[in-house]
């Protein structure tokens, strides 16, 4: 909760109510109606469903409206292993979500690749592509652990202020994250120079025989 007393009130909010109160109301209403995007990826999705079901029931937190459409969702629960084949779709979904939007990485796989990290077609953590707000460890996190993570997300929202964090009210648009392409391996368009450099460097290295365990 923002308790700062010396707040510089931005131009567009001059003459409005005291910003801390506004923040409080704004955050209170936001955090109590967080709608998750209905996208189950892997094992964790089953625990996510259990959390939505009668025993743990996350509608107590205003999260019961799982939206299959990203346009209506407030946060994205990455519930499981993100593979290279799936990540373009996830990035596209994230781009389609309306601000303010949040990402929760549920489980070891979504956070950092998990037990499948060494595999050739697994993205080692969704944070390589999307900004993650809360990480929930566990494999899979039990429903109570997931709820704990979601409460953490609410805490984070509570800590945000319109002035500093609400970049979605600024004039300039937020740029979408470029959707990666499936090449011989996943091509992240933001890293094109590095990919080029690595692919050419490999030739030199293997020719001079410097690189150990040369890649096929």
């Amino acid at each position: 909760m923002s308790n700062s007393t010396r707040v510089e009130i931005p131009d567009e909010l001059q003459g409005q109510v005291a910003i801390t109160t506004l923040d409080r109301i704004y955050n209170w209403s936001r955090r109590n109606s967080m709608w998750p995007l209905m996208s189950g990826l892997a094992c964790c999705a089953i625990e996510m469903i259990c959390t939505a079901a009668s025993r743990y029931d996350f509608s107590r937190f205003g999260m019961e409206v799982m939206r299959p459409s990203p346009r209506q969702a407030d946060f994205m629960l990455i519930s499981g292993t993100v593979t290279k084949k799936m990540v373009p779709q996830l990035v596209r979904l994230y781009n389609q979500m309306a601000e303010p939007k949040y990402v929760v990485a549920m489980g070891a796989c979504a956070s950092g690749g998990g037990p499948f990290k060494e595999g050739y077609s697994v993205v080692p953590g969704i944070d390589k592509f999307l900004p993650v707000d809360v990480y929930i460890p566990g494999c899979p996190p039990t429903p109570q652990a997931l709820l704990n993570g979601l409460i953490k997300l609410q805490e984070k929202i509570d800590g945000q202020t319109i002035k500093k964090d609400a970049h979605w009210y600024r004039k300039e648009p937020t740029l979408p994250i470029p959707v990666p392409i499936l090449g011989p391996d996943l091509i992240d368009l933001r890293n094109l120079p590095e990919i080029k450099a690595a692919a050419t460097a490999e030739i030199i290295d293997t020719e001079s025989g410097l690189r150990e365990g040369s890649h096929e």
Partner: protein
Amino acid sequence: MSDASVITQTQIYEEIFPDWFTPESRSGYEGFIIPAERIQEAAQFLRDDKRYDFLISVTAVDYYPEDCLEVVYHFKRSTGGAPLTLKCILSRESSEIQSLVAVYPGAELQEREVWDLLGVKFTGHPDLRRILTWEGFGGHPLRKDWKEAFYEEEFKPFKSRWPDGKFSRAEDHNPLQDNLNFPQGFDPDKWVADGEQTLYKSMTRVSKLNEDGIESDQIIVNLGPQHPSTHGVFRMAAVLDGETVVDLKPVMGYLHRNHEKIGERNTYLQNMPFTDRLDYICSMSNNFAYALTVEKLLNVKPPERAEYIRVIMAELTRINNHLIAIGFLLNDLGAFFTPVLYALEERELIIDMFEAASGSRMMCNYFRFGGVVRDLPEGMLDHLKKFLTRLPRKVDELDHYLSGSEIVRIRTEGIGILPPLQAIANSASGPLLRASGIPYDLRRADPYSIYDRFDFDVCVRYHGDIYDRFLLRLDEIRQSIRILKQAVRDIPEGPIMTGKPQYQVRVPAGEAYGRVESPKGELGFYVVSNGKANPVRYHVRAPTFINLTSLADMCKGNKIADVVTILGSIDIVLGEVDR
């Protein structure tokens, strides 16, 4: 009722096979080796003359550095009995073999998988595209000389962990700081992504003139991978004529987690927790199948009590799975969430027991080679007994409010029919097969563990539509309750493990194919050992992956709205489909 007479492998040898069927001579191996160019002929012979009408699995083993790529086929009879193994040896360079799709349509997806992961080219395959990776992917990852980006060492345990295990992330060792690996000289600017063009080209669309002279086109509609009803990240590309499905192709691999590649690096024991994550709803059944397979290689048998515990766990898993399957089928029909809520309530009570016994709700990791990890906790059996008095009541309730509902019946009766012969040809298994009138249940057809001691019926229904699959699952829950009641009554006291628990098992060289009737169908593990600490080949015959072969057949001619329900009635889990 299936043919109860068990045909052993030795009996098969006694039967007269043509002389070009060379019996396997390596110790620990079984089956026949045949010349690669005659595989289609052999398959036809097995199917028509020897009644091996069912192709279980197609896979391949890479014996690098030897120039030997072995394609392995498993066949079985739909009347029961042990499976038969056929092998063809190819060279690694020119790995080409005839496709079996013409004889066994069930080979379609599996041959695509072998092509994708091991690079065996199946000539005559109608649609040989990559299946788990994507079109354009560099290399065939299950070849032994193919190395991934985060490659550390050939085998686990890695030497970098102990005794001088300075922590570092795998990212730090890769020049791209990521799990990426590009071929030499790769230029991303010149790369043209396939963008599903190969997929769309493989689907035929026709334009036709209507009676009133208007030309109408058929269109392709994609469902998934992000779709609320695809049970995960599954995708279907359907060709539609109006609302009617003309053609449909399953697209998978969105959850391909390299299970087999990782499995061949792991030690035998390390694979056990990974099997939990195959079909993540039924981790106990996966454990069961894998434990049986390795026990076959090790030639050990678990003690009595462990056998009973295993059966109890496997049957609880079946109930658990069918509850979810029924609940989500109703979800797909539009009964949004009420049946699922009631089903999940019972499931929570089941996984409470799993959690108490194994420590985890879903990823049980409970079985070990030669037994189970630990004995049942105190009071668990009493709890289970009480639960078994509650469950039938709840199942009857489920039956009461769902089976009679007119909406359910209108939406499911006569939809998505799979005729029995088609089901066998497509290598369908589990409830999908039994709802089509084939009473094939491995617990009876080729009994494993102690299933021959229990009194239960193999459920079968004859219409082969969605409604029958739904009813069949209800029937199976009731039969599982029957088995559980007997198991709880008969379970003896005693040890739960043969031998001492050890983390490094010595597995003699050889191969084994172990299978169980998992809730979704025949779950098999094909493990090849060379006597070292890690398996040479670790293949999973995933029932739902192969059941998906029938999806297109069932959907053709139905409305697009029914496709979702038909998929729901197969009951897929993507962890297992994509592995």
